């Protein structure tokens, strides 16, 4: 008596028609697909790490930009105050030196 009949007659267990052949092929195909699937470069951990690094980089750039703006404001204020001490005749030269040429 083969296994299939033994299990059916003594335990009442049945399987769908053609189950063994199809399931064997399915399992092997499944394993093959699993193996040939390209390894995922970005796993969940990698995605989280990249996102966290991106946020940090963005925050860093934002702080730097803010600092640069503050520096520009401070410099402009200093120059404006300094300009009060410059005479009207010397102002054009002073303006060229401090604003025009300094940005070139």
């Amino acid at each position: 008596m083969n296994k299939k009949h033994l299990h059916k007659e003594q335990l009442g267990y049945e399987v769908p028609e053609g189950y063994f052949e199809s399931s064997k092929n399915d399992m092997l195909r499944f394993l093959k697909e699993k193996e040939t699937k390209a390894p995922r470069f970005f796993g969940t951990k990698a995605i989280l790490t990249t996102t966290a690094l991106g946020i940090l980089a963005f925050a860093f750039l934002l702080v730097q930009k803010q600092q640069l703006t503050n520096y520009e404001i401070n410099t402009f204020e200093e120059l404006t105050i300094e300009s009060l001490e410059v005479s009207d005749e010397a102002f054009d030269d002073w303006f060229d030196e401090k604003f025009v040429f300094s940005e070139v």
Partner: protein
Amino acid sequence: MQQDDHIIEQLKGKQYDRAVKAISELYHEMLYWHIRKLVKRHQDADDVLQNTYIRIFKGLKSFGYRSSVKTWCFRIAYNESMRLLQKQQKLAHTNGEGELTDHLNNLTADPYFDLDSVSFAFHESLIKLPEKQQRIFQMKYFDELTFDEIAEITTWNKNSIKTAFYAAKEKIIIHVKATV
């Protein structure tokens, strides 16, 4: 054992694809029935069989050659089945359901269980056995595993397996004789 030798040769040659194919050729049906008797329902057995294949495939690279390939595969199948049963028991416990070991309730819900074809006295005596005796008896009687193999698969003591098997056999004979 000679069949195992062929698989071992492939493993030594790192031909894992071929090895798993050879395993499926030799043990696919046996593994299914081994699992089915433990988890009872066809759909569960199919799921466990798939997980078993994944574990076999992953584990082949680190196969230690300490046991036969057959025993090793059966042990994986056994452990996977136990994992499913534990999960089901936990779930039943959370849902406040009764004992999941109610064999027939579980079986009759399975479309691939045919109660009419069963030798009723035999089946009745089998389901009345304690879980451990039932498993051992089925492994020996249906799967035709040796006591050594059963001990390796279940990690139970060989002598206690023998005792449990003969006790189970005795109970079944008495029950069947009394019923027929």
